[in-house]
Structures are given as structure tokens and as C-alpha cells.
């Protein structure tokens, strides 16, 4: 398999912040080029502030590069309009964040259905059926109608993963998915990712500084001060 899913071409990202009336430029990513192939389970590691989260947002079209190009599934997302990006995010990407970010007014089932009905791709009954399947895949078939605040942290994160998978994303982008969980729940989430990757050939990018988590993936890109410090492909376990 050598299909390239994500490609960065000389991507830089500079933040302009105003302090005391003068503009201060902070370069987060000076010049970054790399590729991620289809079916890869990649971990991006590095100390906080190294720019790994920015990389993830650039992949997801949530942030734009200052210069350079970002390709997702052979589409240049770095030049798309905001509404086009919304569509791409809906159809090709699934996000999981450190905090679950579920909508508190809606049940687990409704939260998972939301990306499916957003674009009108699924009818409500189809969406309900699929959301039920996804939730039972993550082991929550008995919590369909629970509100987020009735679920434990691990359960909330699993609902978030189910939601990220709702539209069969090309890539699953996750930002510190275990950062807020205890070791038992972390292991459960990791096993879930592993299973997705092996069974469904799901491309997954995980930003993490959990070394044990990273070591169990297939590839570790270590970032230091916005540059790739090391890029290691690991043997399959």
C-alpha cells in the first residue's frame, strides 16, 4: 500500500500575536514536509509547544499554513474556502480530542448521529441504525440514550470516537485522546484504535506524549521545535 493520504509540502505556520501594541511573530513550524500513507497508524510525539497539535489542525483543515501546501486524499485543502473545508471535514475526517467535546443536550446516540445528518447524507433512520452499530462497536450498546454527563470519562471518549467514525473518515485525527483518562481506560481506547487499524485498515494519526501509547503504533514522528527530529517505522507487533 503506497497511497498517500496526507502530504505536507514545505509547510510553515507563523502566529502573529499582538502584545503591548507591537506585533510579535511566533514561528511554530518553520518548514515541514512529510507524507502519511493509507492504513498507517502514526503517532506524532514531542514536548508541549513543539508544534504537534498545530500539525494536526493543519491536516484537519482547522488551521491554515502560512506558506506551503497541505494535501488530503489528493485534495489541496490549504487553498479551500471555509465552507469547502467544512464539507471535507464532514466527509473525510474524524476528530477525537483530549476532552470529549460532546454536546451536553444530546444523548450519546444523537451525538454520534450528528455528523451524519449534518450534510443530509443519511436519513435520520439510517443514521440512527449506523450510530447504534458504531456505539455497540465501541462497547456502549447499553448507553445509547444516556446524556454525556451520565457517562464516565472513558465512556465519553468512546462516544467521541464513535462520532469521529460516523462518516467513514479517510483519516482519524486524534489529539491526546488518552490525556484525560486513567491507564485502564487509556488501554481500552488504544485497543479500539488498534482494532480499527487492523480490521478496517483505518488510517489514524495520534498526537500524544504518552510514550507507551506511541510505542505500540506503527510509526512515530518525533517533533522538536517544529522540525521532524526522527521518523521511525516500527515493526508490527
Amino acid at each position, binding site marked *: 500500500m503506497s497511497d498517500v493520504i496526507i502530504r505536507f509540502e514545505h509547510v510553515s505556520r507563523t502566529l502573529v500575536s499582538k502584545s503591548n501594541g507591537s506585533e510579535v511573530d511566533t514561528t511554530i513550524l518553520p518548514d515541514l514536509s512529510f507524507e502519511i500513507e493509507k492504513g498507517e497508524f502514526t503517532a506524532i510525539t514531542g514536548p508541549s509547544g513543539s508544534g504537534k497539535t498545530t500539525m494536526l489542525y493543519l491536516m484537519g483543515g482547522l488551521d491554515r499554513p502560512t506558506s506551503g501546501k497541505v494535501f488530503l486524499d489528493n485534495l489541496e485543502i490549504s487553498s479551500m474556502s471555509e465552507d469547502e473545508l467544512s464539507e471535507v471535514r464532514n466527509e473525510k475526517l474524524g476528530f477525537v480530542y483530549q476532552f470529549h467535546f460532546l454536546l451536553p443536550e444530546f444523548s450519546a446516540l444523537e451525538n454520534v448521529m*450528528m*455528523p451524519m445528518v*449534518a450534510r443530509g447524507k443519511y436519513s435520520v433512520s439510517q443514521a440512527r441504525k449506523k450510530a447504534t452499530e458504531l456505539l455497540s462497536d465501541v462497547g456502549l450498546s447499553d448507553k445509547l440514550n444516556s446524556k454525556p454527563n451520565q457517562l464516565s470519562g472513558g465512556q465519553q471518549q468512546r462516544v467521541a470516537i464513535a462520532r469521529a467514525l460516523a462518516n467513514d473518515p479517510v483519516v482519524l485525527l486524534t489529539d491526546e485522546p488518552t490525556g484525560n483518562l486513567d491507564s485502564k481506560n487509556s488501554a481500552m481506547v488504544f485497543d479500539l484504535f488498534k482494532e480499527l487499524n487492523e480490521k478496517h485498515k483505518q488510517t489514524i494519526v495520534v498526537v500524544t506524549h504518552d510514550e507507551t501509547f506511541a510505542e505500540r503504533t506503527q510509526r512515530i514522528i518525533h517533533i522538536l521545535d517544529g522540525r521532524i527530529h526522527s521518523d521511525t517505522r516500527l515493526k508490527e507487533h
Partner: protein
Amino acid sequence: MNIALRQLTSRKRQTILTISGIGVGVMVLISAVSLMDGLLSSFIDKIVNIAPHVVVSGEKVTSIVSDTIYQAKKGETINLIKNVERQDEEIIKNYKRVENLIKSDPNVSVTSPVVNVTVIAKFGTISQPLEVFGIDPGPQDEIVKFSQNMTEGRFTELERTPDGLMLGTTSAKDFGLRLGDKLQLVSNLGKTFDVRVVGIYSTGINDIDNNAYVNLRVAQNIAGYRPDEVSQIYLRVKDLKRDAQAARTIEKETNYKSKTWEEISSSVIALYKMISMMVYFLVFFVILVAGFGVANVLITNVLEKYRDIAILKSIGYKKKEITVIYLLQGILVALIGAAIGCLLGYVLIFIMGSIQVTPSESNTSMRSDRLQMGKSPWYFVLASLFAFVVSLIASIGPARGAARVNPVEILRGER
């Protein structure tokens, strides 16, 4: 959409407060409009029913002798010396002929000659000025409808009693007069006339209830008129919308000044309109405040939901869709508020309409023991529409603010 509804219901207390704010605003607007409209229209109804539609007076439209025979051209200067005119009393001479002329207009249904004279009335120790109208009881009754408004005595008595006098309740109270009492009227020529009270009426319009009526001949004697002279001719028209047209025709044909009821009561109508204007302004501010309430609910909602908005964006909702969600919340609040307001307004109109009030004694108003409430579906439509527009405008700001939320800032925890 579903999301809008859920976010509203999850913040019940604030939503209910805002909805009731709009509801109260709409209710106040409806009842205020109804009250003002009701006052004005019942006033007009009464005038139209009881007062003459057109009054022809002895005043001439154009002076008999014109001031200048030479028509000045542009640029010329004329030294104009005003012709001396006879200070005629304003009398309609040969009124029968004038009446016939007026009646030739098919729109005119009744004409009634009137002699209007102010006298000093003496009763016991009281002597006060009194406005006395000499009338031809038959046709006059068709205009003012005395026979329907008699509180004491009978209207037909006036016709049968040459020295009879009929009083309005207000003037009867002033003098302490009762049926059968005798009093003296002193004219400005110094002559004294003895009359007897044969009837007391109450129309509800103070202007009319302040007066007294005698037979035409008596009033002509008091005023020193000849038998073919009167001071005014009252008339009613068939088509009220064309009363002004009738008045102008009469002016052209008879050269006597004619005024329609709108012109006669213009100051009162203007006063009513001014008061309504003030009320509308106050109510406008009530609704404006309710609009701020809507904006407040939505702004706090947007602020609280920054995270959710970021999530919605990251799972693929577009800017426009986010705007719609929050606009929809504003619209929902406005709609429910307006509906409740309409309901409350309807009830309030009903309650206000049944409240007993002490009749006012002021000269210009009319007396009534109830508040006259106007009833028209338009009040509800207009008030709801107004509240809706205000809330819609109030929700545009927060809704657009929601759409501008940058997901990266939220997800990074920068806000």
C-alpha cells in the same frame, strides 16, 4: 432545527423569562392600541350619531364687496385700502330658501335650522351664562336624537309648549333645575323671557349636555332675529365619506361657511391622536427592552456554547448553518412570546373593557361608564409582527458572532 430547540430548553429559566418579556411587551402593545383606538372610534361613533355632520353658519365664504377690482400682475405693487365692511352678525337670511338649496343635494338627508344665542339664565339666586339653541324640534331630533336620550320628561313636550326649555344633564346640575321649574333668560339686549323646564336629556357628550334648547321662535325673539333668520343650519348626510364634498358644494352655492364634523372636532381628534402617539412610543420601548432580552439570551448562549460551536464546525457544519441555528433560537423565542402575548392581550382587553370607571366631567370628552376597547385582529397581527422583527434584529448579532467562532482557538483552550 433540533439543536436550536435543545439549547433553548436546556436553559429553561432564562428562556422562559425572555419569552414572558416579549409576551408582556406584545400584551401591553395590543391593549394600549386597543384602548386608544377604542377611545377614538367610540368618540367618533358618538359624534357621528349625535352631532350634525355638517354645520352651515352665517359666516360668508367671500366678502360681499371685494377688496380690489384690479388683478395685480407679477412685479406690480398695489396699494390696497381695505373696504369698510358692515359688521354684520353672522345670520343666515331667508333660511327656508337656503335649506331648499341644500336639500337639492341628494346626499343630504335632514336639514334643521338653529338659532344660537348666549343668555344669562336666572334661577333663584343663581345667574349664569347659558348657551341656548332655538330649534325646530322635529328635524333637530333626527340629528341629535334627543328622544332617545331623555332622562326626565318627554321630547315631544317641547314642541307643544311655546315657552318650554329642554336642558342637558350637565347644565341642569349646574343650576339645580328639575322638571317643571321656571327660570328667566336675559338676552344681551336686556329683555327678559320666562321659560319652563319640560325635559332633561343626557347624550354622553359634554359639549351637547352643557346646552339648553328652546323653540326656534323663542330663540329668534331673544336674539332679535326676524322670523326668516337663523344662525346655523345643521344637516345630516347619507354618505358620511362624502360629507366634505357636500360641505364644499353648499359653500359654493350659498356662500355660507360650512364645516364638517371632522373640522369641528378636529382639535379633540388631534388630541386623541397625540395621546395615542405617546402611548405607542412608551410601548415601543417596552418591546425594545424585550428585544434586548432576546439578544441577551442568545449572546450568553453563544458564549456558553463556544465549545459546542467549535465541535459542530469540526464535524462539518458550515458557517451559514451555525447562523441558522442561533437565528432559529431567536425566532422561536419571538414566536412563542408573541403567541403568549396575543393570548394575554386578548384577555386583558376583555378585562379592561369590563372595568367600571367614573365618567369624566371635562368639557371635550364624552362620558361613558366603561373603557371603550377597540377590537380588531390587526392589533394582534401588528404587535406580533413588531415583536418578531425586533427579536429577529436582536438575534442577528449573536448568530453571526457564533458563526465567526474559530474552532482552533476553542479546541486549544485559548478561550
